[in-house]
Structures are given as structure tokens and as C-alpha cells.
């Protein structure tokens, strides 16, 4: 399912062949995690990493086309005022790039069509879901079929969770990863599909990349607090059909070094945090597929 960039190039879609992997981290209007997300991209080996304010995309000073790896960080864009990421989805769908007829959303669609990678974390995942980028069945990136809504507890929570990846998922970000431990920090992380058919298809197509699990990473867990929000089938992260778009509620950029781990003073841990592998997989994928 993971068509390579080379094929895309043959189809004449890829504009710039990246000798160097260029990552963009979008910020603005209440994005909060851009700094650590950019740091993760750098540690992962991305040759260039730019934190780009959305006003620079709208003004046309920066172009998505010039990058290969798009990061949509966590935060509270527009204060989550109309429901998480709703107002930002509305902005991306409708705002036009200055001096052109092109909408920001059009350039995003082209970015996807070019076979490039998008990672959405927390508020970024909420944005991808509400734009329809995820799960993006049949390449339809405009229809919302799942949502992320209020935690069953009715509370925002900061808590670390165990995540079980699906080894047979097409997701390029979680390749070779077995069990992942990361923090969630959200009030609206409960994944709800529109209906049973959508849910079944998510599983059938292996788009359920991550599930909240027990501490041995064996079983997906519905019980609080291991499942911190009551998410359907303990879903914590989704990818699209090609595995190149990935969104998750937990924060991989919050665990880049052992000292981020809540129990590093009492457990023997590798110096590198587990979250970094997700970014490294992305950068390596892009480099390999060049």
C-alpha cells in the first residue's frame, strides 16, 4: 500500500526531489508544542527544520511544496473554542493564499498527493480528523468519518499511557516499534467513529496504528486510567491507507530523552526517549524513498 516516492515522481507529481529531508512544523493561533516537535525532527536527522507561522503560509512567504515532512503539533489552536481544532479546520479549508486563488487546503492536498509525510499530534491529530485527512478512506481527504471528543471523565488530563502498535499497520512512523510509553495531555481525546462500518474498516485496513494498552503492551484496554479518555476500541492513533499520514493523541515529542520519563530516577532506561523513533522512522523513510 505504501507507494514509493519514486513512483510518484514517475507520475510527475513530486516537484522537488529531496536530497535533503526538509521538515516543517506549523505554529500559530495557539499551537504550543512546536519547539519540542522541531527538536524531535532535528534529533531524528532531518536536514532542515523550520517552525513556520501559519501567517507565513497564508502570505505565501513559505510554501508547503518546499518541504517533505509536515508536523502538526499539539496545542489549543483557537482555544478549542468550537470543539478541538474545529476553527482551525475551518481556517485551512477556506483561507486563500494571498495573491492567488489557491486555498491552503489545496496545497495540503497536493502535499499528500506527492506522497509526503504528515504527522499530527494531539491538537494536530484532532485537526487531521476534522479536516477528513484521517482516516481518508479511498483517498477522500475531505469527509469527516471519525471524531475526537471530550474524555469520558469530562476532564483534561496529563498522564503517561502504554501504547500497543499494530505491527501489520501500513504506518511508516511506527515501523519496528513494539510497545511505546508516552504522555497524553488532552481534554478531547476520545475517538468516536461515525458508525460500526467505519470502525470495522479502520481495523480491517490496519489503520488503527496505536491502542491504549496494559503495561505489558499485550492487551488493548478500555478501563480508565490506562485508557485515559474512553476512546472506542482504545484507539490512540490512526493512519491513512498509505500509512503516510499519521495522527495520535499521545505526545511522542514529549519523550525524547530519558529524563522526560516520569520514573527515570528509579528505572534503568535507554538514554533516548521512545518518542524519537517515530520521527526517525519518518525521516529515514523519506531518505530511503528518495
Amino acid at each position, binding site marked *: 500500500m505504501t507507494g514509493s516516492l519514486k513512483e510518484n515522481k514517475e507520475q510527475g507529481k513530486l516537484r522537488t526531489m529531496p536530497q535533503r529531508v526538509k521538515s516543517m512544523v506549523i505554529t500559530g493561533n495557539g499551537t*504550543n508544542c512546536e519547539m519540542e516537535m522541531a527538536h524531535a525532527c532535528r534529533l531524528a536527522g532531518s536536514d532542515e527544520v523550520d517552525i513556520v507561522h501559519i501567517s507565513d503560509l497564508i502570505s505565501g512567504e513559505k510554501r508547503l511544496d518546499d518541504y517533505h515532512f509536515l508536523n502538526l503539533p499539539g496545542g489549543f489552536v483557537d482555544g478549542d473554542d468550537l470543539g478541538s481544532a*474545529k*476553527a482551525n479546520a475551518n481556517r485551512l479549508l477556506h483561507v486563500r493564499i494571498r495573491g492567488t486563488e489557491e486555498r491552503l487546503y489545496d496545497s495540503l492536498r497536493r502535499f499528500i498527493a506527492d506522497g509526503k509525510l504528515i504527522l499530527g499530534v494531539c491538537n494536530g491529530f484532532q485537526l487531521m480528523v476534522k479536516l477528513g485527512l484521517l482516516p481518508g478512506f479511498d483517498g477522500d481527504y475531505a469527509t469527516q468519518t471519525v471524531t475526537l471528543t471530550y474524555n469520558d*471523565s469530562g476532564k*483534561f488530563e496529563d498522564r503517561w499511557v502504554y501504547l500497543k502498535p499494530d505491527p501489520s499497520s501500513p504506518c511508516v512512523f511506527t515501523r519496528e516499534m513494539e510497545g511505546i510509553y508516552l504522555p497524553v495531555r488532552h481534554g478531547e481525546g476520545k475517538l468516536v467513529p*461515525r458508525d460500526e462500518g467505519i470502525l470495522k474498516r479502520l481495523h480491517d485496513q490496519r489503520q488503527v496504528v496505536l491502542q491504549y494498552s496494559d503495561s505489558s503492551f499485550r492487551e488493548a484496554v478500555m478501563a480508565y486510567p490506562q485508557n485515559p479518555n474512553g476512546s472506542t476500541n482504545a484507539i490512540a492513533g490512526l493512519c491513512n491507507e498509505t500509512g503516510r499520514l499519521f495522527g495520535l493523541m499521545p505526545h511522542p515529542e514529549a519523550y*525524547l530523552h530519558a529524563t522526560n520519563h516520569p520514573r527515570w530516577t528509579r528505572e534503568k532506561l535507554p538514554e533516548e526517549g521512545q518518542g524519537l523513533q517515530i520521527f526517525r522512522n519518518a525521516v529515514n523513510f523519506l531518505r530511503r524513498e528518495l
Partner: protein
Amino acid sequence: MISRIEIGFLPGVRDALGEKTRRRIFHDLHLSVENVETIEVYTLEGDLTDELLERIAAGPFSDPVIQRYAVNRSLAFDFDWLIEVGFRPGVTDNVGRTATEAVRLLLEKAANGGLKVYTSRQYLLKGKLTRREVEDIASGLLANELIQRFEIIDGRTWKSGEPVKPYVPRVIVADQPRTEYVDLPDDDAALQEISGSRVLALTVEEMRIIRNYFQDEAVQRRRREAGIGEGITDVELECLAQTWSEHCKHKIFNSLITYEDEHGNSRVIDSLFKSCVKGSTNAIREELGPEDWCLSVFVDNAGIIKFNDEYNLVFKVETHNSPSALDPYGGALTGIVGVNRDPFGAGKGAKLIFNTDVFCFASPFYDQPLPPRILHPRRIYEGVREGVEHGGNKSGIPTVNGCLVFDERFLGKPLVYCGTGGIMPARILGEPSHIKEVQPGDIVVMTGGRIGKDGIHGATFSSEELHEGSPVTAVQIGDPITQKRMTDFLLLARDQGLYRAITDNGAGGLSSSVGEMASLSGGCEIDLKKAPLKYAGLHPWEILISEAQERMTLAVYPDKIDAFLNLAAKMGVEATVLGRFTDSGMFHVCYGEQTVAFLDMEFLHEGLPQMKLNARWTPPAFPEPDFPEPADLGRALKEMLGRLNICSKESVVRQYDHEVQGGSAVKPLVGAADDGPGDAAVLRPILESFEGIVVASGICPRYSDIDTYAMAACAIDEAIRNAVAVGASLRRMAGLDNFCWCDPVESEKTPDGRYKLAQLVRANEALYDYTRIYGVPCISGKDSMKNDYMIGGTKISIPPTLLFSVIARMDDVRRAVTMDAKQPGDLVYVLGETRKELGGSEWYALNGFVGNSVPRVDARKARSRYEALCGAMEAGLVASCHDCSDGGLGVALAEIAFAGGLGMAVDVSLAPSAGITRNDDLLFSESQSRLVVTVSPADREAFESMMADSEMACIGRVTVEQTFVVTGLQGRVIIEEEIASLKEAWQQTLREM
């Protein structure tokens, strides 16, 4: 045209807010409701077609997977009662603002200037309730009538589908903006009346000084030349009242105090601030000499110290007590986003890297009748918690440290301390970043939010006790997103060198921000008519002093003004030129062509004479406690662990994001199950480096009942001890002092003012003595002096409270230590002496006593202990370390054990002690400067030799068994409890909050 869009959940979708509301109705009001359903309502003003309204409802306003909507009809269905809650006119409606922006995007080019969206929420209740009960739910829980209105609909008289009549909270100001002259007569009673009725909080003496200034012939001549009348305008009077308020001027801290001690000896103190607070800092800086790492102290919005050669750290803590008493949510939200602007407006401006919060409340389980205008402490607790959650989390600043303190006297006014730290490059484009300069000719620019009537008289109102007439306009609601947009923009503008100086608009609004910056250049000239308003009709004086949030004032280089304004426009931030800074010596304010204020800068800032006050110290005497040592000390320990001041605060802590920005190294919750009470926060502000910052605090108002000198000493020691416990050294540790007092000025209302002032003097003297010995200079601070409630015959004064916060540099966060026991077999050490110091302790409080033997701090001994311990930690010899404070050794040992998921077997009689004859005293004495440490047996000798000069004893071991076994005096086992049951006792109290 007015339209209404309602958004509800689809059938079968869980309504988490509705469920939470149902639980709170039950917990808070003891009313049983079967079900609560919520519906979000948007009221739109503007010409919108039906087709467009459908698109708005289906698009940005609703989620197609879980929600449904109705345009101009009602979704409500099958309810017994409907309550709709919306804002009153002029109250900040953040969701409404976002909704307005979202609709404007849909309108695209057909921009509709008149478009405005307002929000409200419906609660549909099912259950047998009377109208009276529903009114109680509306006014007692769902709406705060100061800022919100509600409407109740009875389900029995409701026709399904019938639209609810739209309500538009439009601000209608009938008045034309005008400036009036105020007659200040030669009559003290009349002056008093003017001050009172205008909420000026000026004394008669201050009013006379103002009147005399305007009678001065030279002043009158200059005014005639400037084209303004000889008399004082309302703009000038209000401006002076703000600038001279206790809140802004700290008159009590700067007063001349005659202090008489218990022996009748008296001495004179010329300004507590200068002699004690600043005095200590100056002395420490002198001792540091060329190594001095303080950069900007007491002169700016926040204190600035060196972090390393490349970066500076900035820290400030503020209080927002009075607004939080009236509107806990808005008050606390404004508190946190307000203090954010202090480090942001210090020097050239800092990036914000952490928040700290300390809240003081009455018990949330308070069950006595409430005095008028007081909200139930549970409602204050939840409102404040939520306000700070929204302010902190949405701003992307980790809340790394804090605490909750409970005392019944915080019923009258809760204390809401909010602190923020920042970091900035030591130099920006070659210029030192900590220096603030303004040159004549620089442009005065205001950025961020717009001005409304919100926050008018905040500064003067908080300079008074809470009373019947406390103004509702003082209440504001912060808008973290508007502020975030502004700070994103200003950090870019800073790095591009587009402005020379920055300051925040807080208390006193433009009158303070422009007034203070103008004192750096020597004057200013601004036009209030240019200021962007939320709605028309504000009078010039209101524009000048409104404390509407999310605004910064800047001095912009004249040749960079276009670049500055262009960048602001591109990033969607409003920025407005108001005038320029001058060296005229005058604070010159116009409204269009008309001069409305023309005050000598010197009179404005220096015209207030020093207050003269009297203090007399009489040590209080409480009955000596008389109760037997309890037979079951295990039960006593569990009772102690469950006390409000000791129990787990996890339910609050988890609702704050404490790791955004990615540098968290020691979190507020630590241990085997991530639920033990961390002593202090450690974070890495620069992700490429392991250099860290330690943030900690100390607060112990209960000791004030006996002696505020001891209270302040203990607060300072506790803050430092907490920082040391995680691995901070004293080498680069700075403090912040935040005093919250009850009115200490003797008057009819405050007959015990001399005693309260003596309490203030003693606390300050302790501050001087202890910060000097520890070598921890205060770099900034604040005082809030009128924390009283007085209505009818009831007066409630808070216990005098000092919050001491510290920030310390840590060379390498990988050396940080947490409080949880690590390994079975590790040795348990107690450092420091336990004395019979239970006066003001939790143990005495539990038994209904205060006592007199308040803990005393031996700072010299403590300092050498802390330094030795820091060395042992840097050498990696310490497995765990925990501060011993509220609840003493018993509580500290139990916390270490259950946080580590391990048992413990200790003999507390081995702990260094003096004068102890009872096991309960040994377990629960709150002697200061003690720490409990666990050490691997392999490190025993090395550790003991490094700590050789400290009072210290090994009292037992960490065990693999899940029991906590304590041997006491006379060699008998006094406690044997499962750690799970101790943990449960500690966790259950506030678990559901």
C-alpha cells in the same frame, strides 16, 4: 438580523459535560437530578442568509460525527427544566470571538463588519425539582450573576420545537464620551465622599494633596498655556488614584513605621521594602561582588538573573485574590494570563517557560451558612482550578509546581498566587536584554486586545476590603488565545529589533503602563481617541484606566514603526499608535484635539508623601495543648495523611499540563505509580542542553497565629529545602516574596491594626535575616494588603501569609533526585533535629489546639546541611530525598514508602531529637530544616562522611514487604500499617474534586 444556531449531541453520544454537571449538582447542592443534557447556543447578529446559516451550523459550529444542529428552531426535547446561561453585555466571550472569526472566513470577500456571534449554553434537566431548586442550580452553580444571566423554562409549559427567544448581550452605551472637571472642595467629608463614591481608594490626606497641587499658581499657569482648565479633570483624578493606589504604590511597605516590641522598646523602620527586602538583596549582591548574577531586581515587571552566559531567567509571582472572590473562574484565569505578561514585559521580553500556582481556600467541605456575597469554597476551588487550567494549558506553559493550602479564614478572600518564569537571550542584536530604556521620540504603541469597561477600578478595588459596593466591572475574563497570538508576534518583533522597550498593561491599564515607561524618557503625549475599543461610548478616563486584558505597551523606534505594524497585521494582531514618548516632564493625555490630562510626571510618581504608621508587638498566648498521646498511632497517621493540608492533590495536578515544551525532568507527581508528592520541579529550558531550573515554594500561614517571624522563616526554609531536596544548590538560587496580609492600618474598621502591622514588620525582619544567611536574594515580589471581608457586622481576615518561591539553576538535570523510596534494603536517614515544635502544627490543629511552640529555624546549621547534601547528590550518593514539613516525620516517611511502592522499617527514636517525650510529638512535630533521605547500602560510608557535620541518623531500611513499621520511644512498635491503606488515606480526601 438576529439568528440562533443550537448544537446538541446525536442520540447515544455521551455528554461528558452534562454528566459532570449532574455530579456537581449532587455534590455541591445536594440535589438529585436524573439527567443533564447540554446544548451550545450561538446567537448571530448580522445579515446572513438561511443557506449560509446552514453552512455555518454544519461547518465550523458542529461535528458531523457526534452532533446535530438546528437553525432558528430549538433542539430541546423531553426535559423538566431548561436553564440557558449566557454572558452579560461587555463580558469577554472567547468562544464568541472565535465563532465570529470562523464565520468571517466563510463570508470570504463579502466581509461583514457588523457580524458578531455571542454564545450561551442550555442545560436540560430531568428530575423532580421545584422552580426554587432550579433557580438555586442556576445561580448557585451554573451562572455567576455578576457576569452571566440565565433564563429558566419549565418543561410543562414548553411547546416542543418552539424557538427560545434570542437574547443579544450587546453593549449599549447611551452616553457621549466626555471629560468632566471635578470640584475638590475644602471639606474633608466631601473629599472622602468623592473618593468613596468613585472607588478611588484615596485617603482624605491624599485628596488634599491633589487639591493643593491644582491650587498651585505655577501649575495653573502651565495648565492655561496647555489649553486645559485649572481644575482637575476626571481623567487626572482617576489616573492619580490608580498610580497612587496601594496596589501600585505599595504605600504600606514603603511607610515609616514606629515599631514597639513586647518590652516597650521602640524603633523606627523607614520602609520595610527598602530596609528588609531590598536591603538583604543589596547585601547579598555586594558579597557576591564580581560573581553577582542578579541582573535586574525590583525595578521591572519581574526579576531577572543570569542562567548562563547566553541566557537570562525571569520570574514573577502575583496574586489575584479580590477578583477571584467575586468570579473565581475569570479572576484566576486573568491571574495566570496576567502574570504571564510580567516576565513577558520585563527587559526586552522573555519567552515563558513555566507557571506555578498556590491557592489558599477554606475547606471545600464547609457546611456552615455563608455570609453575603461569599461564594461557597467548593465553588471557588473549582472555579479557580478551572480558570488556571484554561489560562495555563491554552497558553502552552507547563504548570510545574504549586500547592493548595486550607484554612477557614480564607472564606472571606481566597488567595490565588500565580507565578510565571521566562527565559531570554542575554543579548538581543548585541544589546543586553535585561535593560529597559525609553528615548524621547519613541512611538507609544498598544498591542493585543481591545479596551472595554472590563477591569475598571481593579487596582483601587483590590486596595480595599471586599464589601457590599465592590464593583462588578473589576471582574474580567482572560483570553489566552489573543494573548498567545500577541506573544508569538512580539517575540518575533523582539528578535528583529523592532522595539526598544515593552511593558504590560495590568493594574491601572494605560495610565500605569504608559505612565511608568514615560518616567524613563521624561514624559509622553498620547491620544486616547486612537485606542481601539471593544464597543463605542467609553469615556476618556475609562479608556485610560481600563484593565482589559491581553495588552502590551511598547516604545517602538520611530524608523521601525512601519515594519512593526506590518508584522502585526500579517500575524493578525492589532497594534495601534497612541502617541510618543517625550522629555517634557509632563504626562500629557489628549482625547482627539482636547487635552484631558496634563500632570507633572514628578507629581504623578513622587507626589505621594510617605505614610506614617504605628506597630506594636504583643506575643499572643494560646492555651498549652492538653490531650493524651493516642493509643493507636497508625490511625492517627492515617488521619493526618487525609488532612486537607497534607493529602494528595493529584486530582488538581493532573488537570494541568506540566510537561508541554518538552523539558520536564522532575514532575509534580513522582514514584512507582506516578502519584507521589514531588518536592520541587526540575526542567530543561534549552532542549539541547542538560542545564536545568529548579522551581519550589514554601508557605505556612498557620504559624502566623503564633509569630509571623517564625512563619516567614519557615516559609523561606521550606522553599529552599524543597529545592534542595531535588538537587538544587544554593549557589544560584533566587527568591520571590509574595505577602498577602489583612489590613494592617489601624482604623475604626481595623482596631487591631498595630498588631497586624507588627506582624508584617516581624515577617519582613525574618525575610531579611534568613535570605541573607542562605544567600538567596529576593529578585522580585509583591504585596496584597487588604485581604479582609467586611459586610454587616462580619469581618473575616486571612491569616498573614507569605509565599516564598525560589528558582535555582541546576548544572545537570541528570543528577536530580525524587522523593520515592527506590530499592528494598536502602538505608533511611533523617537529617536535622526534631524538637518539640508543634505550635501551629497540623497535629495540634487536628486535636483542636494552636499551642505556642512554633518551629524556629536555625539557618546557619540548615545552610551547611543543605550544602553538604547537595554535594552528596552531585556525587550520586542519594537514592531519594524528601522534605519533612506539614505532618512531620510520620507523614514524610509514609509518603516516601508508598510513593516507592515499598515498605519501611524504621525506629524514629533514633532520629536526632531534643526535648521529645511523646511518640506523637516525635512523629508529627514540624521542626524545620529536616529531610529524609534513602541511600544504597553501597554508598553508606561515602554518604556519611560527606554529611559528617550534620545532625543525622540512620533510622532503618526500605523493605520489600508492603508494610510500614515504626518503632518509637521505649523500643515498642507504634505503627504497623499496610502502605496501601496509608496511601488510600492520603488519596481519598480530594480524589473526587
